[in-house]
């Protein structure tokens, strides 16, 4: 693996499968009474969050702590864009404190890339979501979840599995990372959105696209619903929330057209009644809560592999 995890494109198929198999081993920890391994004892992981994100931050925090790393949480409230140099100054501070890994969430696309390549820090950088660019650990935990439910063979391969990613692809870092990672893992991805919410140049991505959710659903093995932020309405991307919901929301009627084994996913936080109805979110097909559990295991695997700890469970 590379030293940093900035984009899902940084992962070869071997890398991704190593993360997923390591996560599977670490996942079993969650069911033990003592959930801790000594693998990263004495190492320091900094959670550097320039954007509010409760679930991703606590997921990384739990992951690092279960590997016995020291964790420093740093949340810079407010927009760093109004004081652009703060990313650099914060990074220099963390470097001086001796961070081994920096987990960064930032509102600006490419901020983790800058952190990793500007010479400001020597530590490994993990992208925990940057602007409208990428969120690679979310894609890994999504792939991990899919693999547990849909995977074939001993390795849980996703080869040929059909995944529909539905919603605001244009502004979604989750969609970008998932499209890249799932293609690497051999799955067939279809992005479903109104044309206004698909990025320019999407035809060069390793995916299919569709404007018609009803046509895509019966063939899907997994349906991933993306959050639609209400402020997008002011940008005129679609006329009303009601119309969006009618054309691109997943409700009970649409859920009935899915195959029996098809799972429903959502990276959270959900806007119930907008892109997903409560009936669907709380149904047996929904693996949304499990995604959160798997997130910890996947982030443990990422930190463990980047920081080159000892074999998980192999000592002490």
């Amino acid at each position, binding site marked *: 693996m590379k030293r940093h995890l900035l984009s899902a494109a940084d992962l070869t198929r071997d890398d991704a499968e190593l993360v997923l198999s390591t996560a599977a081993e670490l996942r079993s920890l969650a069911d033990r009474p003592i959930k801790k391994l000594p693998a990263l004892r004495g190492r320091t992981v900094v959670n550097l969050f320039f954007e509010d994100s409760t679930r991703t931050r606590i997921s990384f925090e739990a992951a690092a702590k279960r590997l016995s790393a020291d964790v420093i949480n740093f949340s810079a409230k407010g927009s*760093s*864009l109004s004081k*652009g*140099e703060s*990313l*650099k100054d914060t990074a220099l501070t963390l470097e001086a404190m001796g961070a081994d890994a920096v987990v960064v969430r*930032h509102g*600006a*696309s*490419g*901020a983790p*890339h*800058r952190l990793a*390549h*500007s010479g400001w820090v020597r530590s490994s950088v993990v992208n925990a979501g*940057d*602007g*409208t*660019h*990428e969120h690679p650990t979310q894609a890994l935990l999504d792939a991990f979840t899919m693999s547990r439910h849909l995977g074939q063979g001993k390795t849980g391969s996703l080869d040929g599995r059909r995944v529909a990613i539905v919603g605001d692809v244009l502004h979604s*870092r989750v969609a*970008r990372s998932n499209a890249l990672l799932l293609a690497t893992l051999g799955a067939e991805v279809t992005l479903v959105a109104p044309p206004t919410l698909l*990025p*320019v*140049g*999407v035809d*060069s*991505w390793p995916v299919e696209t569709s404007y018609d959710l009803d046509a895509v659903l019966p063939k899907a093995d997994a349906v991933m619903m993306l959050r639609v932020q209400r402020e997008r309405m002011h940008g005129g991307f679609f006329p009303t929330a009601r119309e969006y919901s009618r054309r691109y929301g997943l409700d009970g009627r649409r859920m009935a057209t899915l195959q029996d084994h098809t799972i429903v996913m959502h990276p959270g936080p959900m806007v119930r009644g907008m892109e997903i109805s409560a009936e669907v979110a709380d149904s047996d097909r929904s693996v949304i809560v499990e995604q959160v559990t798997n997130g910890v295991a996947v982030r443990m695997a990422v930190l463990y592999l980047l920081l080159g700890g000892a074999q998980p469970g192999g000592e002490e």
Partner: protein
Amino acid sequence: MSTSYLIRNVSVLGGEPTDLHLRDGVVVAVGAVSDPGDGGVETIDATGLVALPGLVDLHTHLREPGREDAETVESGTRAAARGGFTAVHAMANTEPVADTAGVVEQVWRLGREAGHCDVYPVGAVTVGLQGERLAELGAMADSAARVRVFSDDGKCVSDAVLMRRALEYVKAFDGVVAQHAQEPRLTEGAQMNEGELSGKLGLAGWPAVAEEAVIARDCLLAEHVGSRLHVCHVSTAGSVQIVREAKARGVDVTAEACPHHLILTDELAATYDPIYKVNPPLRTRADVEALRAGLADGTIDIVATDHAPHPHEDKDCEWSAAAFGMLGLETALSIVQETMVDPGLLDWAGVAERMSYAPARIGRVADHGRPIEVGAPANVVLYDPSVRRTVDPTESASLSRNTPYRGMELPGRVVATFLRGRPTVLAGALV
């Protein structure tokens, strides 16, 4: 210091080597000089050097008043002299904005005091660049600065009525409106060229159509009211075509291309290093090729630098927090050699037209942009096209360091610049 320079064996506009004699601010001889006829003459061996008329930049940001941490008239004109320029047009987006006679006269006077090149202030089209009402264009035209170029550069005069009125109004003093063509609603929050890469990088796109739509509209407006229009920093293939068609129809439109748009492409944004962040953004390879072709066939009249200094902290940050713009004065001629002269798209006479005669004509600057001939003001550059150099930002005369060419090897070097017969650069160094 000598007031008489005999330049031996120089190739004027790339022609056969000959001699050039500058005295008392004017060219007194072009051709073999056996006896310069005065004692104080200084002789320069210019074997292998090309003589060009002093370059004229129609688009420079000198940042003074207001952002003297980025550039001053003094430092910016030193950079200009090093780049072979004898005249620059200082853009109006200063703080305060150059929208009154007082501010343009201040900039003009600072230029005269610095003395490294002539400074022609550009006046703002609208008060405070706000795009709401016309600034006192006539007062700026009548001031000591004699403003003839008006621009809200950095912002687009997007209101069609206001643009029409500005185009009409400046006819009274033979002025020109230089439009920063950027449809504001199509480019809200825009960070880079809209295309395949912006979608991948998650950076908000700046679509070509946002430039082209404004240029098309302005060409039609200029045609309708019979005014002349200048288009700043044309960056897309579509814009080149629109200007080409307007010229063919007889519209009085001129256009500029920036050196960086002739050589760099949007792929550099993948580094997320905002040294490559500029407005309009770096475009695709196809756009670069179209700009070169347009500059070669005269659709694009001039090269203008859009020299835009920024302090280090405004570039040493994440992409979306960074300022737009890059340095250009000291590398412009080298980029034009690399992209136009060496590939055979333009000869040295063509460079003189695009970087001296034409910008002086558009700006109505009488004493610059004149052919090197007896009696003309002695504004001359001596340029060595045979050497190659690696760009080192710390060598810049600018107060800022935001050159996108750091570490890049470029051809050519300015050996000497003469402003009215007085050297501002000699032996490659500022005088």
